[in-house]
């Protein structure tokens, strides 16, 4: 058994980041559903702006965690673990699913607008969330924990 030095005790390491990456995808649809009700379910301007800001933050955070910018606060060893060849492959695959979902949802919206008025806010919200949910769920699926060798 090994212990981490005390000054680093409460800092995240590569393993904890990977564990969070595995756990998060299943909560995302709930987060977006809740934020959608805040943005589109209220008519007050302030509530809509707060909801939009929260949605933008959560979306960017998802992008950062899953399709990522480098996490500079981690040690070089942890950054290398998070950004190894397999992680890059998984990220690329998840992004390709996200782009495919984006185009399919976009096609659906372009066809639907022939019959219903397409509001820009709802169109953007649907495109971003649809693509993000597909990409992140794909990421979660490819990155799911594998059974230990002795199991």
């Amino acid at each position, binding site marked *: 058994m090994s212990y981490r030095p005390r000054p680093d005790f409460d800092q995240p390491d590569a393993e904890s980041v990977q564990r969070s990456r595995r756990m998060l995808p299943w909560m995302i649809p709930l987060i977006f559903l809740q934020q959608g009700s805040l943005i589109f379910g209220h008519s007050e301007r302030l509530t809509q702006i707060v909801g939009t800001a929260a949605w933008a933050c959560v979306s960017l955070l998802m992008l950062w965690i899953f399709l990522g910018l480098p996490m500079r606060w981690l040690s070089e060893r942890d950054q290398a673990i998070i950004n190894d060849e397999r992680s890059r492959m998984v990220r690329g*695959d998840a992004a390709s699913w996200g782009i*495919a979902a984006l*185009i399919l949802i976009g096609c659906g919206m*372009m066809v639907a607008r022939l019959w219903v008025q*397409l509001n*820009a806010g709802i169109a*953007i919200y649907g495109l971003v969330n649809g693509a993000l949910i597909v*990409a992140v769920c794909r990421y979660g699926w490819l990155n799911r924990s594998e059974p230990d060798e002795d199991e």
Partner: protein
Amino acid sequence: MTQPSISEKAERLNKRRARALPALGVIFLAQQASFLSMPERSARPVDQLKIGAWLILSIVLLAGLATGGAWFRPRAVRELLNDESTRAHRQVGYVYGFWAAMGTALGLYIVNLFEPVSGREAVHIIVTVAVATALLNFGLLERRALRDS
């Protein structure tokens, strides 16, 4: 004259793809200027046809990027065209394309709070940015790899 071998064919196609993809990305982006002059609720069949053609072109470009192209070539040539470095460049292209699409969408959402944007324009801009960024990135990485090798 002797027939070129499979590897020679693949190399030639690879060079052609590296030249063509960035150019296609720029042409695809430049073409979108014609959509800016289109009225939002236009019912003219020619406008619907234009939108349909744009959607089909987007899907074809993405399919070309996903498969590596050369659809009518022998399987052995396609496999050589789809080597490890090409796959890595493609993954990078996808990640950049996805980031660009999400960034554009969030930017458009903020713009829409102050200056109304139509739903069609929003979908059009976001999808175009995603496809063009992924294509350009992949093409440029392939070009750089060919130049360095």
